[in-house]
């Protein structure tokens, strides 16, 4: 199996336990070498915007929570789509949420930019599947 590491991953979530757990599982799975963490949508948007403005490369994958203070996952997506030079075609976005609300799932499908939806807690198998699908 030819497994390619993800160049860089961005985690946007307000739950410190989730961030801790995800980082730990990513290490175990040898998922990536670079992890950017933001605690809400606004923080992430501001940082990513700064990166594009500097001309640097954006993370190649984003794990995005929905329910966050200040700026929710939805709002982040709305703003991110509008951001110039977002390189969105090459960025893979996963929604990671504990919500099983069908309204949320229906809403995800409206965003073409979103690749898939992963229900919390994230498991090592989830990461393996991601790597496989990206590799293919």
């Amino acid at each position, binding site marked *: 199996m030819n497994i390619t590491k993800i160049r860089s991953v961005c985690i946007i979530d307000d*739950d410190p336990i*989730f961030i*801790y757990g995800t980082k*730990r599982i990513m290490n175990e799975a040898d998922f990536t070498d670079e992890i950017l963490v933001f605690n809400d949508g606004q923080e992430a948007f501001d940082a990513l915007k700064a990166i594009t403005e500097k001309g640097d490369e954006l993370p190649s994958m984003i794990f995005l929570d929905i329910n966050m*203070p*200040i700026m929710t996952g939805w709002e982040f997506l709305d703003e991110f789509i509008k951001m110039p030079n977002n390189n969105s075609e090459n960025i893979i976005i996963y929604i990671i949420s*504990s919500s099983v609300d069908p*309204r949320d799932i229906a809403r995800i499908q409206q965003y073409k930019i979103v690749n898939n939806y992963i229900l*919390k*807690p994230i498991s090592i198998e989830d990461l393996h599947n991601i790597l496989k699908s990206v590799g293919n």
Partner: protein
Amino acid sequence: MQTLSITSLIKDSPSAVAILDTQLRFAGNSKVWADEFCPNCESLTGKNYFDVIPRTPKKLKAILENCLNEGVRNLSEGEKFIYPNGEIQWLKWKINAWTDANSEIGGLIVLLEDVTRVKRREELYAKSERVARTGGWEVDMHTNYVYWTDLTRDIHEVSKDFQPNLESGLNFYKKGEHRERITNLVTNAITDGTPWDTELILITAKGNELWVRAKGEVEFINGKCIRIYGTFQDIDEKKKTELDFKRISNRLALATQGANVGIWEYDLISDSLVWDDIMYNLFGIEKIANQTTYDTWLNSVHPDDMERSNQEVEAAISGIKDFDSQFRIIWPNGEIRHIRGIGVTKKNAQGKVVKLVGTNYDITELKNTQMMLQKSEESFHGAFENSDTGMAIVALDGSFEKVNESLCASLGYAEKELLTMNFKEVTHPEDFNDDRSLLKQITKRKRSSYKLEKRYFHKDGHVIHGILTVTAVKDTSGELLHFVSQVTDITPRIKNEKKLSHLVDITTEQNDSLLNFAHIVSHNLRSHSSNLSMLTNFLIKEKSDSERENLLVMLRGATDSLNDTILHLNEVVQVKVGAFEKMKNINLYDAITDVQKNLSILIQEKNAVCEINVPRDLKVRVIPAYLDSIILNLLTNSLKYSSPKRAPLIQISSKIESNAITVSFKDNGLGIDLKRNSDKLFGMYKTFHRNKDAKGIGLFITKNQMEAMNGKIEAESTVDVGSTFKLYFEKPLT
């Protein structure tokens, strides 16, 4: 003695003869003379004529003297004398002078005749001819000579010396029918002796048309007509009157027949009742000539009306009251008809009523129509008065002419008050134009009725919802008389609809909030459980003691969070089951100041100012614990999310509105971007600031508490300027 013998001969003359001498003394006279002119004289001989007849008119005296002196004769066919006492005498005389042997005038022979009687008759005849406008005429068939009397000439308007012949006489008759008729009549008369008597028009010499009555008779001798004669009467005036009368009678007959008016005449003396044909038709009886009596009529009258009708006739006869009545009659076939009878009385010279003359006509149709109208009016009246629907008769100017109880009840006015008002005064101004424009369509005859949902004002000012139906009422000629308005009061229905839709809103809202709640519960519990399962998985695999310690701390935190979440959810559930019976009238000012005291340390720390502009006695109807919780939450929020740039200022004010008491909490804090967050401001677990204390539960609970108290909460906010929360409380029960 010769003289004497003559005188004695004269004595027995059948005429009145007198012989006078030169001294006008009677030499002899006939007995007739003495009888005629001097009946009481014993002997006239030797007496002077003027002594015997002293009143001899002057004229005659002069004639006598003249005849004696001149020896001439004098004749008179008749002369009229009027004596001083006024007496009229007609005298006819023949006077001759006589001569003796020597041809000397010896005296006069006087033949005198009193023709007064004959002349009077002649005069009378002429007068009557003039009065009767009757002239005479005569045609001598032998000589063809035509004689007309003066009056005949007069009638023909020709001069006195006009001389007609038979043909020109006939040509005076009007050409055509009239001339032909008289020509035929005259021809027949001449041929076979038939007399005639006819009425014809002639055209006078002056061109006037005249009706005349022409009578003619014929004299035959040996089978040959020798003379026709007759009279000729001007009947123009009479004929014209007659023709006029005939025309008028015809017209009247036509009119009465057309109007089916029967005419009757009741002769009280003979107790005979004369009916015209229409009367028989009206009473449905066969005509029997001369058999109709008062009883014929009375027996036809309906038994219930008989006595009254009879009395009315008697009242008319006795002059108390003219006969003008209505009564029912029964036809032989049993049909009942209504009759109107009118009669006038005719009195004789003594002022006694001898006749009643009058008319009858059938008013059954009218009566039936009247009864139907009365019935329909009664039923309309009944429906109008007893209807649950508000009803009004509205005049063309919009004023109420008649209103029913139901309308009065709906609008809260007394009938008297409404009758002085115009529909505009009770109409909601926003609906008036719709109503008026529809009404105009009726007056312009574009429609005859309309239906409209509109609002009225009750006398006490509240709005009445009604469904109005307006119908035009027209008279027989199509002129608009008034409108009939029906108003169904649908206020209770509208109220119920509102209540129902409010209930539906609440139900929908509660459903939504329940669904939200379920998702919130599942989401929040799930996020904790997923953390717990992840952490326990790590713990199982973790070998490093320090890392296990770290994981246990996190596990502890996760279980605490789970516990918090469950407490919050419980709190929310508690709010949701909050009951109305816990609501009380609470002094708002006291409640705010109590919370303020509890927060005094925090207020001091933040160096905050709290301005309370609420009346000391203002009460709101709330669940006391919720009110405290709400005030606490809002004040805490204002302090927690105050701007670091300025000292916090919190202004609390109240306002009494029509159906709520509003309280506003205004601060100068961080503010919230409501454009982005309006839908989740009051949502559960929504936070808007990176504040560690923010749990996203406070406003969610506040909102639920407000709703549990039938109130609501609204927010206005500008980032970095401040927020204002507006609370709507129920008014206290009094």
